[in-house]
């Protein structure tokens, strides 16, 4: 019975991230629109858009290979798995042992690899521009992310998210400068990885400035729906990651009662909303940077991560 219950809770987490992903994107859009004094699309609009895309015919370029058709499914599956591994409302789930930070980064890295290949596959100039920009950003964001992981691992003594979350929620952690630096670095990486302003603009119509959107410009129909959903999942993933590591309160412990789980879910949704609001507010206050400024931005994230890790060695008490 216990096994079945554990599996059910794990499945609930998988379903939850998938169900919430479009909502978070819709919420960010709504907040941005309100900040612009616009009414904005309804919160549920991203769900409707996905339904519409799923119902539409998928148009393929004549010279698209099997890779181009397979990539949306690969990217979606990988991203979903990664998103479902990050502790959302509870820790110590049945697959928590596999929720290793390095594994999650590797999963996202392989999703991006396929995505970039698909961008090049059709041979249009925009796909190429998008892929080359995306890979450039990724090659800078991943080292910074790894420094954040090192810092967290050094503090918590594990790269497993469930353990890290448990440690961060305990009294042992205290106030550490390193964690503050790691948080800033993680946020910068998250902005770059999710193609948000100031690195990329998810709402632009200017094909020459696009990064992520240029890469997926040739997709349509159900393929585009999967890619959009994967992007929305990625946003939730990073929000969950920041939530479970730096705001680990409200996470249900293993084998808790239903009311604890319900409380965990409520706390999780609240965290997503707060993070979504902060993202929208941040995006409203800054212009997009030039492409050649992105290395400086992510270099800053790398340096912060490095500094955070170094500080741990210099003084264990900081």
């Amino acid at each position, binding site marked *: 019975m216990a096994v079945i219950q554990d599996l059910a809770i794990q499945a609930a987490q998988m379903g939850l991230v998938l169900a919430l992903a479009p909502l978070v994107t819709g919420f960010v859009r709504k907040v*941005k629109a309100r*900040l*612009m*004094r*616009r009414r904005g699309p309804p919160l549920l609009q991203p769900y409707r858009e996905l339904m519409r895309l799923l119902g539409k015919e998928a148009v393929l370029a004549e010279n698209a290979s099997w890779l181009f058709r397979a990539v949306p499914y690969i990217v979606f599956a990988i991203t979903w798995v990664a998103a479902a591994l990050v502790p959302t409302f509870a820790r110590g789930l049945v697959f928590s042992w596999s929720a290793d930070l390095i594994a999650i980064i590797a999963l996202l890295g392989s999703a991006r690899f396929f995505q970039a290949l698909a961008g090049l596959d059709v041979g249009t*100039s*925009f796909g190429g*521009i998008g892929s080359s920009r995306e890979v450039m950003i990724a090659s800078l964001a991943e080292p910074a992310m790894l420094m954040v992981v090192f810092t967290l691992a050094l503090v918590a003594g594990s790269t497993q998210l469930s353990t890290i979350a448990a440690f961060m929620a305990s009294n042992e952690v205290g106030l550490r400068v390193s964690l503050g630096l790691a948080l800033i670095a993680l946020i910068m990486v998250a902005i770059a990885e999710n193609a948000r*302003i*100031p690195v990329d*603009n998810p*709402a*632009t*119509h*200017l*094909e*020459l*400035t696009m990064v992520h959107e240029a890469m997926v410009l040739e997709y349509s129909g159900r393929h585009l729906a999967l890619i959009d959903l994967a992007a929305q999942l990625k946003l939730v993933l990073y929000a969950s990651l920041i939530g479970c590591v730096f705001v680990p309160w409200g996470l249900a412990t293993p084998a808790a009662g239903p009311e604890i789980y319900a409380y965990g879910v409520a706390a999780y949704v609240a965290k997503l909303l707060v993070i979504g609001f902060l993202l929208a507010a941040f995006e*409203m*206050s*800054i*212009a*997009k*940077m*030039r*492409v*050649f*400024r992105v290395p400086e931005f992510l270099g800053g994230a790398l340096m912060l991560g490095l500094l955070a890790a170094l500080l741990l060695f210099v003084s264990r008490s900081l």
Partner: protein
Amino acid sequence: MAKRIDEMKLWLRQEIDKAAWGECAEALGRGEGELFALFAEVDRVHMALRGIGSDEPRIVTVKVEEGRYPSVGAHHAPAIRLERAIRDLFGHEPQGLPDTRPWLDHGKWTITMPLAEKRRLARVVHDTGYAFLPAEGEGLHEIPVGPVHAGIIEPGHFRFTANGETVVRLEERLGYVHKGTERLMAGAPLDHAAKLIGRVSGDSTVAYAYAFARAAEAALDVSVPARATYLRALMAELERIANHLGDFGAICNDASFVAVQAHCGILREEVLQAADIAFGHRLMRDCIVPGGVAVNLKKEGEARLRALLATISRDFPELVAIYDDTPSLQDRMVTTGIVTAELARRFAPGGYVGRASGRAFDARRDLAYAPYDELQFAVPLLQEGDVNARVWIRIREIEQSLALIAQVLDQLPSGAIKAPISSVGEEREGTAMVEGFRGDIFVWLKLAAGGTVLRCHPRDPSWFQWPLLEAAVEGNIVADFPLCNKSFNCSYSGHDL
């Protein structure tokens, strides 16, 4: 007929021979003058120009002999596209023109040379095979963009040659929205032609109608009632404010700074609604007609306009402060897309493009047409020539236009708003230049004895701005092109005609 031309204070037209024409072209090439327009009739080619240092613009005319005339573009690059367009429309061959490719005619028209004496049914061309200028070198790649774009904008093709993210060359291809306006004009009654001209470029409908009306009045020797001239200026300044507000927001939006655009959108809407109440049309289309204006300003309209001035004067400085105080935004604008003063001198681009690069020309001041000769305003001038400078010219012009509207409302004379227009029983010509929001709009008009239009040539300011965009983008990164393009905001429709 010659007498008629002599009577005109400005835009004196002279028939000259080939040699003198060639000398004019060479003088332009040496930078001794500015080209305002180059256009044709079935048997001659006209060139409007002004010597540097002399304020009197004039028109010179050369006869087309055996279908040929000496090329101006061979000496003066700004004329190249104009001559290519003349060849597409009339078939006149510019002798010595270095670029022999067609310009407006993409091989899709049902007739060729639509304005020539003898039009020919077009050969059907399926593959137009336009040869873009080559750029060779290691690591260069081409990026074709358009003519259909992702946003809701007009069609135009841009061929980039890039080295990674850096633009090595940009070449434009335009002509996709050729509507045959000049052919529709020929033979049209004056009131119909006035409507047509208002549809050349929708965002400048007032300025075009203004220029056409003044050209027609110059031709027919009509003096416009004082109230009408003031109302015209009022409309022109409202149009300028509305477009500059839209541009200011759109430029910020292209740097993904949407907040400013949202607020500019609100202010622009205020302007359009005020225009609607004042003149019965949001964009004031067909409000200016030859002889005067079609609608009078009513009491509630005046009150609304004064309220509008107060609103913009209150809200706009805050937006400017946001623009100026946001480092991430400034980082995008400053030093991006520079047009050098040297190029601005050669191409004589009107409006913010010229004035941001040190070309101090404003038709309102330098040609001082009524009522601007009686109004106080400054012409902002900057030297930097980057996107930021073009934004600041717009900001300053909005301030000047607000002051102008206040003056117009204060000094608005009473009386008639339209003088009667009647044909004079002989062929007449008229020329006018009006400062639109984008730059100077030039209209040359030839009326038949019966009062219908024989030939009308409106020259959009974009003709001399598009080529500079190619130069401005060079050496910038590909992703900054939309920003440069928006800071120019050239008209496709007005250029393609």
